[in-house]
Structure formats: C-alpha cells, structure tokens
C-alpha cells in the first residue's frame, strides 16, 4: 500500500518535472538568447526588459522549490506521507532508514529553496551586473509561446494535481498489486491514511487572504500615490552594481557550512608596494569549488572506459588475417569449453 503511494509520488514528481523543468530550461534558454551568457554572476536586472521570461522563470522556480502552491510541493507531500506512515512497519531497518530518508528529503527541499531563490533573485531581480544583462531584450514570441505552454502545464499541475493523481495511483497500484492509494476530485485523499491536502483550496485561501490584506488597508487608510525614493547607500554616494550580492556571495554561507563536503580551493595573494612591506598594492582572491563527484566518481570511471577503449583499439589494427584469426580462436575456444563442461 505504502509502496504504491511512494510510487505514485515518484510518478507525480516525474510529471511535475516534465512541466517545470521544461519551463525552467526554456526560460534559461531565453536568457541565454538575450544576454549571451550563462554566468549567474553576470546577470541580474532582467525583470524590466524581459517581464515574460522573468514571470516564467519565477513560476518554474516556485514549482521546483517544493513550496505551496507548486507542483513539487504536492509530490513531496505525498512522498513524505508514505515515509511517515511506513514507521509502524516491523523491522529495525525501516525505523532507522525512514527518519534518515525524511531528513534527506527535507534537506534537499531546503537547499532547493535556497537554490531557486538564488537563481531567480540574482538572475532576474536587482540591477544588471554586466553590460550584456543591461542591454537584454525580450525574446521573440515563438520562444514566449513555448514557455507559456509549459507554464500552463505547471499551473494546471499545481492547482489540479487531482486531475492526474488518480490515474498515476492506478498505475502504481497495478505495478505493486495493491489498492489505488490516492483518490479525491479536488482534495487529495490517501487510502488508509488519515491525511488530506487540497491544493486548490490552498490557492483559493491564499488568494482570499492576499485580497484581504491588500484591500483592508485601502479601505481604512487614505490612498496615496507611491513616491520614488533613493535606496539607502550609507550616505556614500550612488550604489553601483559592483556592491550587489552576487550568486557566489549568496551561496557562500551555505558553502561554508558544507565545507567538509565541497572542499573548496581558495587562495589569497597579497602584493605589497615596492617601497614598504606594510603598504598593500593589490589583493587577489581566488576561490574555486571543484566538483568532487566529477573528480572522484566520474573521473575514474571515464578513465577506465578510455583505457578499455585504447586496449580495444590495439586489437583492431586493420589486418584481415588477424580478424579471421580472432574468429578461428573463438571457435576453438568454444569447442574446448564444450569438451570441458561435458
């Protein structure tokens, strides 16, 4: 039963991914088209020039970061329900693995939120960090149309996941030979588990609350027009884009927390004045986060594959006699093997 539920969550996650990852990639492509760079540290301030792409990326980020009302939130909720209710199952292994799994899901969700706040906030909000970002123009309608299509899928899945959930539940039930784990027309109800979630209700409640929060002060207070004002610059003259937080600086505290895992390489070079050791001419700071998975896991695997390939190439040197010889040797070896096992 819970296995079917977890499988349903995975399937819903898959469908959600199909929607929001498409949207995010299309939006990222639109940004690349407009600015010619993929470096987050060089972007920023795209919102006035590219409102539609900004909206599309914001929608995708909301859907991906497992916050309500988003697609990934619903699948995360179903997954968590299946994990939480798996504990009464007998066995020491489940009671050790399940809490750890919940913690891992939660940490992933938390880091996803931080990631997408970084990607959306640094990439699209604030002021441009380079000329390319400052001169960006909105992408052509054909690109917008693609994003709109994926965006509608995202909204549909966020508001009405119940449209696809029962079907996915039936698939999962068929595979794991149990009852259909998920039912409900607008509210997600789980079979055998006292838990329910209404994504549509959530959206409606949030909208109602927002209308109330915007409307009530307008009725009570005299409405005045907004005045444009300077940003607080500590009285030190206009702020430049060099003073903004970049993607690297945004992620620095988290990177420092996971220092042991990421193992960043950094060095600081201080150049002194020739006249005096006490005067500093320039300070150069370099920081690089090498991808440990790539170096430790993919690297050796790729090297091994390449070594095999080199060895294989030595076998094939173009001589026809040699190729015929391989066939003959194999035939003989097979015959010897046959004799051996008889």
């Amino acid at each position, binding site marked *: 039963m819970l296995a079917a539920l977890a499988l349903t969550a995975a399937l819903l996650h898959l469908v959600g991914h199909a929607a929001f990852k498409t949207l995010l990639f299309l939006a990222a492509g639109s940004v690349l088209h407009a600015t010619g760079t993929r470096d987050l540290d060089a972007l920023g301030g795209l919102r006035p020039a590219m409102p539609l792409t900004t909206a599309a990326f914001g929608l995708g980020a909301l859907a991906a970061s497992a916050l309500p009302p988003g697609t990934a939130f619903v699948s995360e909720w179903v997954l*968590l329900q299946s994990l939480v209710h798996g504990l009464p199952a007998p066995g020491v292994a489940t009671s050790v693995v399940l809490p750890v799994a919940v913690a891992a899901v939660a*940490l992933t969700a938390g880091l996803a*939120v931080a990631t997408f706040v970084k990607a959306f*906030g640094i990439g699209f909000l604030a002021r441009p960090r380079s000329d390319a970002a400052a001169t960006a123009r909105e992408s052509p309608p054909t690109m917008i149309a693609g994003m709109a299509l994926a965006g509608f899928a995202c909204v549909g899945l966020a508001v009405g996941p119940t449209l696809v959930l029962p079907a996915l539940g039936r698939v999962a039930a068929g595979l794991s030979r149990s009852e259909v784990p998920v039912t409900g027309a607008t509210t997600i109800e789980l079979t055998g588990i006292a838990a329910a979630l209404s994504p549509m209700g959530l959206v409606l409640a949030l909208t109602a609350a927002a209308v109330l929060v915007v409307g009530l002060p307008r009725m009570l207070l005299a409405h005045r027009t*907004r005045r444009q004002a300077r940003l607080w610059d500590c009285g030190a003259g206009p702020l430049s884009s060099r003073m903004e937080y970049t993607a690297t600086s945004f992620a620095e505290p988290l990177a420092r*927390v996971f220092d042991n895992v990421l193992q960043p390489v950094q060095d600081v070079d201080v150049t002194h004045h020739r006249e005096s050791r006490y005067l500093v001419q320039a300070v150069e700071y370099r920081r690089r986060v090498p991808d440990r998975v790539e170096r430790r896991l993919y690297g050796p695997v790729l090297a091994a594959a390449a070594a095999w390939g080199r060895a294989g190439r030595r076998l094939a040197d173009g001589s026809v006699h040699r190729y015929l010889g391989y066939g003959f040797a194999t035939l003989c070896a097979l015959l010897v093997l046959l004799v051996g096992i008889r």
Partner: protein
Amino acid sequence: MTGLGLWSGLLQAVLVVGGSPLLVGLMRQVRARLQGRAGPGVLQPWRHLRKLGRREPVAPRGTSEVFRAAPVLLVSTTLVVAVVAPFVSTSSAFGPVADLFAVVALLALGAVGLALAGIDTGTAFGGMGASRAMTILALVEPTLLVAVFALSVPVGSTSLTAIVGSTLHDPERVISPGSLLAGVALLVVVVAETGRLPVDNPSTHLELTMVHEATVLEYAGPDLALVELGTAMRLSVYLGLLVNLFVPWGAATSPGVVALLVGTAAFATKVALVGAALAVAEVFLAKLRLFRVPELLAGSFLLALLAVTAAAFL
C-alpha cells in the same frame, strides 16, 4: 468543515492579527523590566504600526513588484495558517489545508518572499540578509520535518487537528521521551524561524549581526507596517503551533459561546506565557556567530532524530 471550525477560524484571525503586536510588546516589556528599564508599554507596537500606516508609501528606485508583493505574501500566508490551524478549538476551518507539512511550507513561502525582496533592492544589505536567511531556512528544514515526523508517529497522521485532538484525549503522551525531545527540537526551530536570539537579534542594527533586519531595511511606511505585522503574526503563529501541539488544554471541543471564549482566553494566555518565558530567556542569551548556528541546528536535528527513534522503539 464544521461550524465550530469556522467560528474558531474567524476568532483566530482576529486574535492573531490583533494580538500579535501585543505579544511583541509584551516580550519587549518583559525584557525592558529585566534590564532595569521602564519600557514603552505593551501597546507600543500598535502605536508604531499606526504611525507607519499613516505615512506615504515609498518605492525605492530600481525595485520591482516582487519588493511590493513580499509584505502582502508574508501577511497572507501567515493569515491562512492562523485561520486553519486548530488554536482556539480542536477543529479547523479548512481541514485539507491544516496539515503540518502544508502549514510549515506555507510559513516558509512567506520567508522566501521576503528574501527575494531583499535581493530585489540590489543593496549589499538586502543580499546579505537574504543569503543568511535562506541558509538558516535550508538548515532548519530537516529538523522541522523530522520533528513533525516524531509528532505524527503516535497519532498516525500529520493532520494538525488529529494531533491536537489525540493529545487532548491522551495527556500522558506529552511527557513521553519522544514528545519531550520533539518539543525541545521544535523550540529551537521556532526560535530560528522567527529570528529570535540566539539565532538572530530582532533589535540589532549592526550589519555584522543582522539577518531579518537586513532583508527589510528598505521598507518604509505602510509596507514596513505590513512587514512588522507579518513578522509579529509569524511569531505568534509559531508559538501557537508549539503550544497547541504539546499543551492543547482549554481548546474548545464543542461549538458554543462559552467554550469558544474559554478556548480563546486559554490560547491567548498560553501564548503570552510562552512568549514571556522566551523573553526572559533572551535576557540571558547572546547572539550566536552565524557559523555557530549550524551547530545549534545540528543539535536540534539530533534531538528530533532521537525523538523519532524514541517514538519507534520505546
């Protein structure tokens, strides 16, 4: 959806919106008295909000609608939680939203909105505050969900109404080791999420120590009033959840004017007591260095994990 749930939802909305600034005022007053000051009085936050509300709205140059929408998002997510959570009674105005996971994610959504607004200003302060706030949010999440897990194991549901109702019927469970450990872990989470000492100092204006204050530095006038109201509501909603998950006594179980009034009074008293206790504890605490915060959160995560283990094995 029941009559009891609807009435208590309405009461809770009024209570949380009206009472949150008073809670903040109470906590400041307690601190002031313990520090030997007279204090401005419990009503001061409301006076402050009234003053801010009358001012002209200001839009810092270069900010987008994200900056203007964030306060609204903060207050409305908190308001939804305040309405659906079983505070005054054991019933919810809208059950399918009153799930612990959903409530927790809704509150996180408000925080994310503020962080985006901080980045949107384009100042170093805003980016710094957003970066720190998101770091803490990401690290709090495991503790939070594992503690929720521990609470839901004996009940068999993550629905808030189910947890509150079953605690009410089975009071002995509260002093079980699993529940106590989960309580301590959740307390640390609440302190971290509401930006109180020792994780963040709500009264600081020094950039080295600011987390929440840095993100909202550019707000002024009615927007700032909304942010302050939202922050206060967040505090009382989190304290309310903490209180009602562990000591739900007094909450109304049947519709009726007397029961609802008793429930309201009980809830307000409990939250005020916990808030005052928190304020007393804060007098004796200093803010932690930002890079010591992960240690605190790792400790609370350990407690939450032990709570699940205790619930599973004991």
